[in-house]
């Protein structure tokens, strides 16, 4: 076809929310569709083309042996590979199985577990292949996505801020929910990108953008303990949409070990 850069959008274990963010960028969508050739995007088009792809957007985590092979093939076909969202960058909420007995999980849900083939873990794309850029969020921010696509098209390396949600609250003028109401908030250790919406809606951040750069997790969880939150609850708060990201995982495992040691 044209000499336009070829874009592929691929899905692994996920909810579709991140790829939908692209379709939700209503004002930019037709513009983007004009500058690239959409070579593979099952949710949007029946026109399916083989690689190579100049840019691949990868949504979802790896949970089956078949998907381990599939991501390797996509990597081989792709020039610049971007993972989009918590599932792809950390394993997503389905990575909670990593702390459980997966067989028991499967049999509690399906009557005939033998029909189901799934790995015992849900892992990030970067655990399997080289990733060129990771875009965070559950879901990602559509403006950040458009910016990333445009940067790559312009031959620039995409950049997204790595500071914490706290800074965005200050910028927005949102009163700190932890200081004012004693609400537990993961904002101090969570990467910005959502525009600090949870505190603006009167609740604590639950970490859906994953760890910020150099997060001071120990001092935050000490603060949670000092405010009377049971250890088990702190562990649960860290083990959510990005629970399997290294920083959150190390801290939740540390607290869990402390608790186990006391019992």
């Amino acid at each position, binding site marked *: 076809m044209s000499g336009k850069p070829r874009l592929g959008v691929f899905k692994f274990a996920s*909810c579709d929310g991140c790829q939908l963010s692209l*379709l939700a960028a209503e*004002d930019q969508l037709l513009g983007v569709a004009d500058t690239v050739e959409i070579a593979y995007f*099952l949710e949007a088009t*029946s026109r399916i083309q083989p690689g190579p792809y100049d840019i691949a957007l990868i949504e979802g985590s790896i949970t089956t042996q078949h998907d381990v092979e599939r991501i390797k093939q996509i990597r081989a076909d792709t020039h610049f590979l971007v993972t989009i969202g918590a599932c792809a960058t950390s394993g997503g*909420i389905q990575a909670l199985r990593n702390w459980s007995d997966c067989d028991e999980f499967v049999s509690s*849900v399906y009557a005939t577990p033998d029909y189901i083939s799934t790995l015992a873990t849900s892992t990030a794309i970067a655990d399997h292949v080289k990733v060129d850029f990771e875009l965070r969020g559950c879901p990602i921010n559509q403006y950040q996505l458009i910016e990333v696509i445009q940067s790559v098209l312009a031959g620039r390396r995409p950049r997204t801020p790595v500071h914490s949600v706290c800074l965005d609250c200050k910028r927005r003028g949102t009163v700190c929910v932890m200081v004012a109401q004693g609400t537990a908030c993961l904002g101090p250790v969570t990467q910005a990108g959502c525009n600090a919406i949870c505190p603006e809606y009167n609740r604590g951040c639950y970490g859906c953008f994953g760890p910020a750069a150099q997060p001071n997790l120990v001092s935050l969880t000490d603060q949670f303990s000092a405010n009377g939150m049971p250890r088990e609850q702190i562990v649960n708060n860290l083990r959510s949409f990005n629970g399997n990201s290294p920083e959150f995982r190390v801290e939740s495992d540390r607290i869990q070990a402390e608790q186990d040691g006391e019992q």
Partner: protein
Amino acid sequence: MTDRVIKVTALTRVEGEGGLYIKLNGDTIENVRLEIYEPPRLFEALLRGRKLEDVPDVTARICGICPVAYQMSSVHSLEAALGVEINPEIRKLRRLLYCGEWIESHALHVYLLNAPDFLGFESGLEMAADFPAEVNRGLRMKKHGNQLLEILGGRAIHPVNVCVGGFFRSPRSEDLKKLLPDLEWCLNAAIETTKWVAGFDFPDFSCNYQLVSLANDKEYPMNEGYIATSDGESIDVIDYEKEFEESHVEHSTALHSLRTKTGNAYLTGPLARVSLNVNQLSPTARRLVDESSVSWPCFNPFQSIVARGLELVHAFEEAIQIIREYQPAKPSRVEYAYRSGSGCAVTEAPRGLLYHRYVVDADGKVVEAKIVPPTSQNQAQIEADLRKWIPHALSDDEAATARAFENLVRCYDPCISCSTHFLKVKIDRS
């Protein structure tokens, strides 16, 4: 007789990933399967032991296109378990939130996923070259639906403002009222949409459905009511698991639902909703029903697109009315105390009935969760319809045949991401 296999390995323009497998031996149909191979994410299992307050945020992640539906069915179930009564303002806000979700979901399906089939395009984006005004109209409706979700929920995909008991904070009146001019534009656009899609060329194809939908004598059903069927039943939501039954089949990571008594399939979704609640539609939508050539109840799955058009009109009209009368809820959330118990609820997701049930303990933790999404309820019916569609779809051209089957599947707007994760089933491991 020779075998013929028609395979669509990757269905396109649906949510999530699945395929189609049809095997014929001469004129005999040997096998018809809607294959759902998307990996399971095991939500019911991973909810166990977590605080009940986590449930609306976690279950939202089952589906990026209808997170509000998951949030609604989960909070209503948990409120039933805890004995929480919400106030009328919270009730209205929840309807408004649902209007936003129906709008973005239906606008996406009508314009980007389904209309291209009727007009012969590979995608809505390609259709935009020949139908720029229509596609832009669809995208603009979707955008304003999303804005409504953003004001109410903080963001359109996985909103953050819903909680057990209500909302973390009431939206500001001025933020909502600012949307009114755009929503009024959209109401007109939705009327145009309905007239446009009602004029499409529909195959002459009618199925002997049992239609199933929530119904409510006072309003178009969203969050509350009883379960009505086109056979005149009214079923209490509490009896859902007695009346509807799931089974697990090999070709699918989703469970099939059937009526317990008869073993028959049934259809839920916009076609069923409009058919069983046509008198509760908003005045403008009612008028369109009277003017249109499609008659209700409707048993032609291809005309689901008209039901979506009518629901777009209804959702915009109701949203405008709620915003005009809006008073912030005080309090924005109702307090509750933990107690052990169980509760269930059905709400109307864009794609149909969404059933949740939770058992919670006295510490506010989830003991058991059960979720039955609309697409797994429709799966058996979709397969039955595919069988019926075979004589219409079959030709010597392989690609055209596969395409004809795919066209039918897309009419149900199946959400495969939703259906891939399941309920707690007692198993015999002997």
